[in-house]
């Protein structure tokens, strides 16, 4: 249980009627939310007013004169008008929500603080670029975009920070990313939102938002000297990848410096974007996308490398620029 030291890190917070807004995205989501609520309340109130109004006015005992049936043509116009009005309103809301969704969920690229997240029953294991490792607690600075690169080593989990209005599932075999920019120092809840077994409700922790200076001091103190990229480089050698890909091994293998983020030509024809998922697949399912000009001879590392180490190797490969490797592998 020593590994679960950070277990049940909890945040003291009084009852609130509105969740804290601690990231730049929170206000954007809330604005849309409250507009939606306003639209819904208006519609519900209209409906209730009509139902109650008709119920009183046309109750069985009332002597009020009854209007004749609404003419069918007028009725149809009311229906079609209602349908058209709602469709237009809904499509406007859809457009707003969809645009914001793409903005919030699509990786904006650029220079971000990338934190690797590996979920497992029942904890969050995180690693910062400078090597600092955390369990169930995430320290982040304000004013800087933070990217979470997530996967799971067992079942599906979901990384949820209500104060950031941020949630994304961590799925085995997939890499999902999420980003945020914290705006308000403090401590906030971190929840697992996707049911994941016995201790699902205890798979929670906290996010500590700090000023950039405090974060720098914290990172300085907790950095282990070896960041994920360096660890990845070490593992790249330790698992024998460098033998073929970097040295002059017996087998021809594609060179990998600068491959990340580019399109790779495939032996089967076509190209594929070398994103994190591609790099991961190349390790575990090496014959899925064989690079043009090479034979499908690489063995699979399925089941031999833990998820956090795979993430480190991927981080290492992504840190390389073309030409970083001076030794040519055999062609």
């Amino acid at each position: 249980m020593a590994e679960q030291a950070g277990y049940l890190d909890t945040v003291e917070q009084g009852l609130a009627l509105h969740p804290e807004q601690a990231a730049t995205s929170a206000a954007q989501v809330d604005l849309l939310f409250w507009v939606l609520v306003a639209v819904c309340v208006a519609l519900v109130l209209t409906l209730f007013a009509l139902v109650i109004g008709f119920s009183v006015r046309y109750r069985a005992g009332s002597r009020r004169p009854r209007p004749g049936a609404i003419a069918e043509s007028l009725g149809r116009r009311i229906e079609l008008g209602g349908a058209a009005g709602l469709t237009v309103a809904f499509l406007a809301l859809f457009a707003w929500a969809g645009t914001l969704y793409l903005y919030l969920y699509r990786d904006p690229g650029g220079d971000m603080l990338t934190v690797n997240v590996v979920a497992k029953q029942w904890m969050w294991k995180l690693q910062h670029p400078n090597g600092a490792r955390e369990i169930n607690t995430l320290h982040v600075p304000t004013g800087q975009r933070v990217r979470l690169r997530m996967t799971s080593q067992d079942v599906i989990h979901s990384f949820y920070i209500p104060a950031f209005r941020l949630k994304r599932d961590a799925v085995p075999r997939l890499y999902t990313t999420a980003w945020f920019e914290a705006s308000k120092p403090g401590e906030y809840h971190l929840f697992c939102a996707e049911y994941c077994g016995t201790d699902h409700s205890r798979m929670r922790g906290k996010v500590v938002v700090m000023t950039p200076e405090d974060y720098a001091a914290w990172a300085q103190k907790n950095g282990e000297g070896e960041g994920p990229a360096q660890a990845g480089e070490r593992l790249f050698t330790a698992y024998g990848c460098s033998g073929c890909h970097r040295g002059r091994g017996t087998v021809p293998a594609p060179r990998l410096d600068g491959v990340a983020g580019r399109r790779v030509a495939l032996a089967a024809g076509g190209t594929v974007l070398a994103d994190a998922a591609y790099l991961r697949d190349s390790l575990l399912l090496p014959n899925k996308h064989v690079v043009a000009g090479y034979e499908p001879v690489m063995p699979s590392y399925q089941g031999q490398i833990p998820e956090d180490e795979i993430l480190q190797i991927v981080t290492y490969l992504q840190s390389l620029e073309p030409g970083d490797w001076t030794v040519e592998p055999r062609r």
Partner: protein
Amino acid sequence: MSEPGTHYLNEGWTLRSWLLTTDHKRIAWMYFATITVFFFIGGLAALLIRLELLTPAGEMVESDTYNKLFSAHGIVMVWFFLVPSIPATMGNFLLPLMLGARDLAFPKLNLLSWYIFTLGGLFTMTAVIAGGVDTGWTFYTPYSTLFSNSAVVLAASGVFVVGFSSILTGLNFIVTTHKMRAPGLTWMRLPLFCWANYATSLIMILATPVLSMALLLIVLERVLGIGIFDPELGGDPLLFQHLFWFYSHPAVYIMILPGMGVVSEIITCFARRPIFGYTGMVISIMAIALFGFIVWGHHMFVAGQSLYAGILFSFFTFLVAVPSAIKTLNWTATLYGGRIRFTAPMIYGLSFLGLFTIGGLTGVILASLAVDIHLHDTYFVTAHFHYIMVGGMVTAYLGGLHFWWPKITGRMYSGPWSIVAALALFIGFNLTFFPQFLLGFLGMPRRYHAYPEEFQLLHVMSSLGAGVLAVGYLLPMVYFGWSLWRGKPAGDNPWDATGLEWQTSSPPPKHNFVDTPTVTTRPYDYV
């Protein structure tokens, strides 16, 4: 053929005359009995859940027990109560009567459906006794296939089996509606209850098999060791979610459409007005049934599904809200210029109208992608679907029961007490579930056995409301029981309603009608 005074209930008193009956009305009773048992089993689980959530630390039961409780609650309520509730009971009883037919097209198949249903129920109950199942009603992989140590195989098999019961019921209803209508009963003269059950049946036969396949693959994975959802082999965990929601989203409409049918009958009858926009109602029922199939991905906005698939599914979800809104508009407009009587069925009908609208509109909030990132898998979702399933469907179920009780049993129940029960349901329901919207917006995740302290107040409110809600459920049991024993004879048409079912005696004779009726007017010919 039949003596005066004999009807389907007193045709025979032996157990055999019930268990081997092919009379749709008796089979409906058998379903009533079975699903009522399941309703109270599911309700007991809900009660324990609400008691447990009174305190934040999760002291009453172990977390495994809690997980099994909410799984049992979901599985039992969805597949053993909500899906069969209106179709298998009132649909079974009333569809042939409303169509002017002597029985469903395949009476033996109908009986078989009940046996299959009961068999599936036995499987699932065995799963509960054999230690329970802890996957939630959604059976998400790879948790259900590789990690859960509970009775997943038994529970999934139970749901698999029960699927065939709803498929056969659906098949029976469709053929009956096509082939067994009385002379003159054209499609555009069908009561909306029949249309709703027809659309529901279509969904049952087209969606259920896909769920069956997904569950079968889970069972095969656990029993035979095939690994279709195994991420280690390159399997995709999201594939199960796609197949599951391909059924389970349309299943929401399996659960709500029959309720809409019931409410259409009730509101027209007690407002003494023809339904406003009959054609529009029919079109929207069928549109919901069709569009319901292409929105399933809105359960997966944060699940790792592609963002563009999310956008497409969100688009269709907004569109499917329009026909539902039209129906609400039409029910309201039906009240205009009526002579409204506030009987118990009408109060249930109006409660449905309010609660369903809130449930539907919060669905629109959840369909809004960016907002769903925050609200997904929180109590907001729990509250939303309980407004539809309980506020909508269970309310409509009880409303229908109160409406047709005199026809089914030939006896009346207590007027004042039934009004008290209907009001208790409306108030208790809102007390229970409205706080959950707030909980969700504040960030309280679903399926949590222990939770941060600041959420306690709202959880306590919700649990107290559940107590009032329970009164709303238990009261009808009492006065319905009383009515069976001592109720006043109801007469053939106590509500002075239109519709063929009210033209035969109460309770109806074995073959429903002494002479096959002929239809010459549109439905809801009130005033």
